[in-house]
């Protein structure tokens, strides 16, 4: 036995069953090196440790098929200091970690706040407030080691109790964070968090969960760690956090300025300051970048920002993502009670044309399940649904529905009205008349509860969903038959077999088990087709050519602490 193997054995003795399972999978060549790194970081192995094991254990054959940015950020030597100006979409709520439910608000939270870990563009978890984390053998208890010596901007020292209190507030059913609970509902219940000492937090889960560290990372953008005694409603007064930048000024509706936090625990921020400017629409953001009034656009769409895609003065950063649209059809209402009718609508759609026309190719084709191609657990052997007008017509004939009229509801944001128009045209080709009803977002979403929301009550609708590093939320909230879980179930889909499969998927701790269940879920959803998932589009950011070392994640998080200018 050589020295390397002895070191590997020594390491494996101290690792959990789950971690050893992932090492075995890699050594056996079942997962790629990239996937090994991603899974390893999720279950709590540090990046240096994973890198050592990846080199020592070999394996990892096969192609690099998952995660990763399609166009990585430009990196290089930069000068110290400077002020980085960022165009950010206008936050829709006050800056309150419990209330933020949008990308602009998430950008504000992440400007000064830090998470237990940062979910990067490769879907890896980079340790931040948590130094490490590990599960028990069955994944029902996760223990996080909290970094010591971390100072809040106001001077207090962060301890494990701050983490516990932060998450207790987020999951409080009586006034917690709706968005955080979309990820943690049914996973972590009040009373499930302990802080036995200043450096340890223990999460006792409702059920086994192999992706839990992701659910409490920056992917859950409400989960910035704040002092235990801070009322989240007062957070907007100070933007209290531990991050590399601290607040200098904040003007609602206008923007915010942050300066370097010299007491930061890690590598100090390179820029002297970072300035956020809020924009109501992406058009002015793009003009501002071209007019040299900002250096970085946090997010833009292909439809609104075509001018940037070929601009030689701009670096476009494309990160593969699971951001998508869902075309729901109510399974409990005519004309969609017969699954053949739903299948016919799905078959009428030319997905490649949508990806090319609406996204200039900056998207992956969907296969009518939440399993986006970038997820490692997605079983890509499930046949892709293609456009087939003849088959669609035959299905309608078999269902006795050769022609009917239905109303499609949606709202007037992004490319959604164009998508609705195209769906209408595709449906017309199989004899279905769709009347579009496109309103503003407020009217479409209403109160967001059944009976008071066009989104949740309409027979047919198109809804936008943001990126999640794991598909758990997409599998539960919009598709679960359990009324407590399926709170976004606009298709009113109820299928006991599906619910049972999702439970198995969530509990599965290794990629093989997840993939096995994923295949069954994908096939079941293709057959039932409560929702059409036409595409999953990439997350695009843009930086001036002279701004390097920016980091974007598809969740809308960005890290500019290493950014700087070349001249």
């Amino acid at each position, binding site marked *: 036995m050589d020295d390397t193997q002895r070191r590997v054995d020594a390491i494996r003795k101290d690792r959990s069953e789950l971690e050893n399972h992932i090492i075995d999978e890699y050594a056996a060549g079942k997962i790629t090196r990239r996937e090994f790194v991603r899974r390893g970081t999720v279950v709590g192995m540090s990046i240096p440790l994973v890198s050592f094991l990846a080199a020592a254990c070999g394996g990892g054959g096969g192609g690099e098929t998952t995660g990763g940015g399609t166009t990585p950020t430009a990196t290089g030597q930069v000068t110290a200091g400077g002020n980085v100006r960022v165009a950010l979409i*206008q936050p*829709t*709520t*006050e800056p*309150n970690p419990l*209330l933020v*439910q949008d990308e602009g608000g998430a950008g504000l939270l992440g400007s000064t706040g830090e998470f237990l870990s940062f979910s990067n563009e490769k879907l890896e978890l980079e340790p931040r407030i948590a130094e490490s984390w590990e599960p028990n053998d069955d994944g029902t208890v996760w223990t996080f080691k909290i970094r010591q010596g971390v100072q809040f901007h106001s001077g207090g020292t962060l301890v494990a109790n701050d983490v516990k209190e932060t998450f207790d507030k987020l999951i409080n*059913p*009586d*006034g*917690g*964070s*709706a*968005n955080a*609970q*979309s990820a943690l*509902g049914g996973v972590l219940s009040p009373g499930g968090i302990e802080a036995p000492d200043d450096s340890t937090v223990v999460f006792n889960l409702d059920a086994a969960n192999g992706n839990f560290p992701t659910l409490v990372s920056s992917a859950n953008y409400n989960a910035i760690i704040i002092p235990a005694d801070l009322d989240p*409603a007062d957070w*907007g007064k100070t933007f209290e956090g531990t991050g590399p930048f601290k607040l200098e000024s904040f*003007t*609602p*509706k*206008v923007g915010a300025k942050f300066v370097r936090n010299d007491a930061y625990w890690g590598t100090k921020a390179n820029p002297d300051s970072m300035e956020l*400017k*809020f*924009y*109501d*629409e992406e*058009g*002015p953001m793009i*003009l*501002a970048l*071209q*007019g040299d*009034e900002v250096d970085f656009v946090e997010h833009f769409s292909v439809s609104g920002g075509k001018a940037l895609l070929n601009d030689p003065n701009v670096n476009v950063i494309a990160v593969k993502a699971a951001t998508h649209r869902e075309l729901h059809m109510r399974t409990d209402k005519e004309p969609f009670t017969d699954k053949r009718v739903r299948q016919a609508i799905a078959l009428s759609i030319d997905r490649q044309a949508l990806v090319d026309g609406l996204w200039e190719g900056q998207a992956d084709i969907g296969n009518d399940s939440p399993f986006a191609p970038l997820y490692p657990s997605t079983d890509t052997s499930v046949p892709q649904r293609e456009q087939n007008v003849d088959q669609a017509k035959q299905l309608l004939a078999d269902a006795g529905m050769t022609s009917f009229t239905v109303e499609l509801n949606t709202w007037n944001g992004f490319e959604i009205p164009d998508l609705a128009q195209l769906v209408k045209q595709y449906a017309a080709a199989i004899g279905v008349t769709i009347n579009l009803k496109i309103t*503003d*977002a*407020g*009217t479409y979403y*209403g*109160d*967001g*509860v059944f009976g*008071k929301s066009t989104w949740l009550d309409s027979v047919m609708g198109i809804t936008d969903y943001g990126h999640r590093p794991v598909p758990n939320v997409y599998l539960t909230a919009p598709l679960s038959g359990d009324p407590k879980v399926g*709170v*976004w179930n606009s298709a009113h889909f109820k299928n006991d077999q599906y619910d049972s499969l999702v439970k198995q998927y969530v509990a599965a701790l290794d990629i093989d088990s997840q993939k096995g269940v994923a295949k069954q879920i994908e096939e079941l959803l293709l057959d039932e087709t409560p929702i059409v998932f036409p595409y999953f589009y990439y997350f695009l950011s843009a930086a001036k050519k002279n701004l390097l070392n920016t980091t974007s994640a598809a969740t809308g998080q960005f890290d500019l602490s290493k950014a700087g200018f070349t001249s």
Partner: protein
Amino acid sequence: MARFLLTRLGLAAITLFLLSVIVFFGSQVLPGNVARRKLGPFADQSAVDQLNHQLGTDKPLYEQYWNWVSGLFHGDLGTSLSYNLPVNQLIGPALVHSLKLAAFAFVMVVPLAILGGVAAALKRDKLTDRVITIGGLSLTVVPEFVTGIILILVFGLWLDLFPVSANAPDGSNILTQLKYLFLPALTLVIVLFGYIARITRAGTIESLDADYTRTAMLKGLPRRTVIRRHVLRNSLLPTIAVIATQTGYLIGGLVVIETLFNYPGMGRLIFTAAQKKDFPLLETGVLIVGIVFLVATLLADLAYSLLNPRIRYATAE
């Protein structure tokens, strides 16, 4: 004159009362529950009910209206539901921004449009008239976002003469602020010029054709004196009324221009308040725009009465 003023003020007060009723009850038509929208779909119904109770949005409408109006009389404009800040902290800066842009646009467009209108009338049916009326009308019918985007592309990006955003950095001097405001103000000039010039032209032609003008000419007064003393004084009456009615639009209706130039004015503030069902901000914002509009029309009435004494005499009788 005092009676004239009192009458106008009385009418303004009645208008404001009606406006407050329309704004308040009109806002209630907006769909959605205030607390549910704030807390999100996962919040328990008990938490939603509790927040509605805390905000007072579960009370009968007449009681909510009374609380709002009595608050206004005590200087309490309420707290924004979406920003959790006193409404005056949001409306104050936005109103200042809007007034700055409106004033700059007025300073540019009013003399230009009046000169254009008078010149067109004096050169009636000639090339100058055609250029001003048809050119002005053509520019007016172009949507403001199209005009704005063209100005941004030409003067902001290609020629790099003006900033593409309108909000100058904090602490900027007046010249820098004007430089930032130039493109949105120019957009407004283009939008308003044709309309105001056309009204001025019509008023001038009417005055030129009037008996008193002919009499003045026949008296042997120089043409310049006739135009200054007799024509302009009368021809500007409808123009003043038109300018006053544009005030409300310039203060509270510039949603598109403010969005395009990323300018934090009243239009965007009120629009987003309506989108978010932020009643205190929406209602007070609209009321403030209404007050500005009423003040502008009152000033227009005063100017009108000074230029045309028959109006104040008619009111006084």
